């Protein structure tokens, strides 16, 4: 019954999108993090989606890897800050908050879309189960 596979397909998409939301959340949380004792700042992370074909021709999704953004860290002039360097700059993470907001909205829309797909499949299956009755 191929209708059952829809739950696997949309389920994989939902799981992938929620992982993307997770990554967005950790990026947003660390948007203003400063460099730690090792001098390394938080690097913005991005998920990479990949199609995962199911056995019978369906197409699920998986997160194949999480990559770190290579853009240089933000340097902000704040001479009064206790962690400022000799020139008065502090080093913040390279997270672009606006980009992350857009990312979050896109992920949440895709999540909703897949939920709706599952709902439709569920309704159809329920009606199929009632086939021949009444």
């Amino acid at each position: 019954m191929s209708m059952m596979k829809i739950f696997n397909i949309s389920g994989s998409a939902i799981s992938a999108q929620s992982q993307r939301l997770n990554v967005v959340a950790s990026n947003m949380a660390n948007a203003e993090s400063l460099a730690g004792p090792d001098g390394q700042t938080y690097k913005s992370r991005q998920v990479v989606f990949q199609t995962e074909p199911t056995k019978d021709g369906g197409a699920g999704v998986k997160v194949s890897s999480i990559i770190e953004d290579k853009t240089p860290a933000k340097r902000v002039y704040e001479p009064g800050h206790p962690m400022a360097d000799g020139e008065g700059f502090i080093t913040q993470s390279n997270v672009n908050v606006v980009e992350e907001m857009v990312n979050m909205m896109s992920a949440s829309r895709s999540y909703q879309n897949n939920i709706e797909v599952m709902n439709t499949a569920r309704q159809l299956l329920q009606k199929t189960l009632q086939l021949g009755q009444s």
Partner: protein
Amino acid sequence: MPARLTESIDFHGSALMLRAERQKVLAGNIANADTPGFAARDFDFKAALADATGAQSGPAMAKPSASAFVVSTTHIGHVAGSGSGDTGASRIDSTAMKYRNAEQPSLDGNTVDLDRERANFADNALRYEAALRFINGSVRNMLSAIRGD
């Protein structure tokens, strides 16, 4: 004659299986709306249905066989007495799957048009329900004919 009785149900049954298959393909497209390089797929429902039902155009189109004792394959699940067997409606040949032409291709190579896919998904769901109702109607008709009330 017994074959004629269930002919309509068989036809709509094949249509139902194909609709479920298409629903799955469309769900895959929607699931991969954000996957870079994913090419949206679909298949020609009309051709697939004609293929599955042996190119008969409707439920009441079967020709009467010359001899009553010829083994005829009136159902997609029947094994033909000779010749090539049918693959059945539940599985779409991979060659029948086609890639959608992207109207607004994106830079990452993804060709899923989410609006279009959702519209197709809703349309297909409706037609699935229609096939279900046709089958239900046939069953009800047959039952009332059997009961005679």
